[in-house]
């Protein structure tokens, strides 16, 4: 039965040109951006035009001054864009070839408080993601479990195994450190158990999308609740944590795949966090208008910079502007929204066998938050329903409905 459930899923076809060899190519510009649509109030620690070393703090959060945003490369601060209320839009950095990187003092003892402080000051904290609601964890939060994602089934996602190869020791050190941050289990979600790793719970992951998404894995093995938050982190970042604990400096790089139909080659690039998407696709785009998307073709969004948590860039040809439909047809189709959803096998598969798709979809589209929460909506984020969004053709946009539901539940839980 478990085997059957793990093998459900779809394989959406996203055309992409042949791949070329991996390359290390940091872009000339990079930016620090807030995760998702959240309002992130920050306090700047540097001025425009100031030089910063790799890993040096650039800003800190107003609500949690312990957590800092760090420069992903030796750079000069180019532009600081804040909205009223010091809400972060973006901090643009220009790379400087001759610059040094920050080395942190390692904690003498193995106490969790020191490790937490090191993670917060080194910038690793902002690579964590907390469910429910998909936010950065608070500085004092203690999760009920932590999931390490050593699998990714999005179309053309980078292989987490490549990040682990040759870094098993760092990975084990990182896992050991993470296990100290939680009272619950450390879940390692991977297709096969990672050899040489003890004291963790292995969660098997099937080959098809959406099995390799943290939300689907957690929904099945360890659901999140407001009073029992669950963190997830990518395996590559755990390797970096291990290296931080060994050397005192945190690598600010990320393996990113650049794919899509508007390219001449599919790239796997090791670049800095928050890299410039135009730099990543430079010299590989086909002539003609195209869209740069941070994230996969299913769950990404148009962007200039690689968003926090994203490990993929997709370049799609810009479709010709559609001819405006006849006024009568447009009145007819827009009046019938939300469009009804017909339960088909495609819909069942796009839930990954973990959740009753139609019941969740109905609860979300009528705004029945109580039922949606009972069906496990709190373990999920928009990206987990992106495949469902794809299957139903984007009307009634399950991802947007889920975000609205999560916002309402968060408001209620916070009030």
């Amino acid at each position, binding site marked *: 039965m478990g085997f059957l459930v793990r093998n459900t899923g779809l394989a959406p076809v*996203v055309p992409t040109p042949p791949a070329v060899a991996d390359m290390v190519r940091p872009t000339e510009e990079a930016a620090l951006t807030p995760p998702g649509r959240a309002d992130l109030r920050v306090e700047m620690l540097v001025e425009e035009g100031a030089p910063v070393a790799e890993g040096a703090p650039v800003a800190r959060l107003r609500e949690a001054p312990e957590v800092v945003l760090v420069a992903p490369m030796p750079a000069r601060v180019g532009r600081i864009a804040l909205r009223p209320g010091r809400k972060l839009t973006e901090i643009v950095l220009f790379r400087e070839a001759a610059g040094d990187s920050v080395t942190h003092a390692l904690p003498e003892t193995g106490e969790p408080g020191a490790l937490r402080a090191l993670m917060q000051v080194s910038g690793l904290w902002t690579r964590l993601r907390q469910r429910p609601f998909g936010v950065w964890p608070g500085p004092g939060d203690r999760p009920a479990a932590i999931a390490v994602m050593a699998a990714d089934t999005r179309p053309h996602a980078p292989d987490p195994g490549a990040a682990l190869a040759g870094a098993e020791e760092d990975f084990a050190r990182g896992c050991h450190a993470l296990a100290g941050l939680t009272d619950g289990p450390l879940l390692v979600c991977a297709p096969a158990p990672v050899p040489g790793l003890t004291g963790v719970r292995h969660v098997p992951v099937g080959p098809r999308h959406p099995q390799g998404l943290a939300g689907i894995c957690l929904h099945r093995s360890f659901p999140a609740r407001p009073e029992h938050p669950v963190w997830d982190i990518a395996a590559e970042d755990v390797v970096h944590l291990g290296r931080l604990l060994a050397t005192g400096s945190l690598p600010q790089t990320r393996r990113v795949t650049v794919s899509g139909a508007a390219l001449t080659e599919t790239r796997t690039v090791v670049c800095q966090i928050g890299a410039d998407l135009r730099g990543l696709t430079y010299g590989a785009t086909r002539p003609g208008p195209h869209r740069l998307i941070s994230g996969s073709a299913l769950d990404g969004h148009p962007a200039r910079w690689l968003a926090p948590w994203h490990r993929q860039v997709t370049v799609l040809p810009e479709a010709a502007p559609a001819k405006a439909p006849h006024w009568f047809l447009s009145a007819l189709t827009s009046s019938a929204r939300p469009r009804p959803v*017909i339960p088909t096998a495609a819909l069942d598969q796009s839930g990954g066998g973990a959740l009753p798709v139609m019941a969740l979809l109905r609860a979300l589209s009528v705004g029945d938050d109580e039922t949606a929460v009972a*069906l496990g909506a709190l373990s999920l984020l928009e990206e987990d329903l992106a495949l469902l969004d794809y299957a139903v053709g984007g009307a009634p946009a399950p991802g947007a409905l889920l975000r609205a539901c999560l916002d309402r539940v968060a408001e209620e839980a916070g009030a």
Partner: protein
Amino acid sequence: MIRGLWDRETVALLLLAALLPMALTWLWFGGVAALGRLALALVISGGWHLIFMLARAQPPSLSGALAALAVAMLAPEDLGLVRLVLGISFGAVFGELVFGGWGRNVVHPATVTLAFLGFGFPAFPWPDLDLPVVWAALPAALIGVATGVMPLGVIGGAVLAGGLALALGVPGVALWPAAAVVLVLMVADPVTSAHTALGRWLNGALYAGLLALFALHWADAAPVQMAVAAALLAALAAPALDEAALALWSARRRTRHGF
């Protein structure tokens, strides 16, 4: 960012494609009379879709053709124009369109039409189905299940429960042609059958179980009449079956995760 194809009309088109072998076989054996009935059902059903489009801005759907085909194949014979028009209108409007169109309805419009005609005009004989038409239900089910537009659980549950009933000695052999055709045309509709995995198997089993009950205790009823009644009751019970399946799912989750 990219969009799939599985919207309402795609599903309706695939269902039509699945039913095409059966429809063509039925037209081949029925001749001009069958064609006339189908055309009448299509015109009436399409007309109501048009009226709801103009009056309530509901986009018309190809599902109207699915209902028209089912009604043309299974409606009682020699009804006359007025009764047939009345029945099809009742089914299309009160079975589907007043709920907001296909995808929001509770019962298949053809089931409503046929039940209405059966209860309203009991004197008219129900049709006998030609065996080749019945066999054409097999490819219809296969295409429907393979493309994912017909729920496998409903068909599987009905076949399993029906086979079990026959093995237990229920006198239902005369019933199976009508049962198979109604199963493919109306019970295995993705909208009005159950939508959870367990609910679908229960839904199919309930349909076959009701048929077995009727075979044992409902004297002087035609096979099509029994199958239509069973389809109506099975569709009405589908939400309850889903609710039960979801309650079971929640209970199992609670024991596993503690909440």
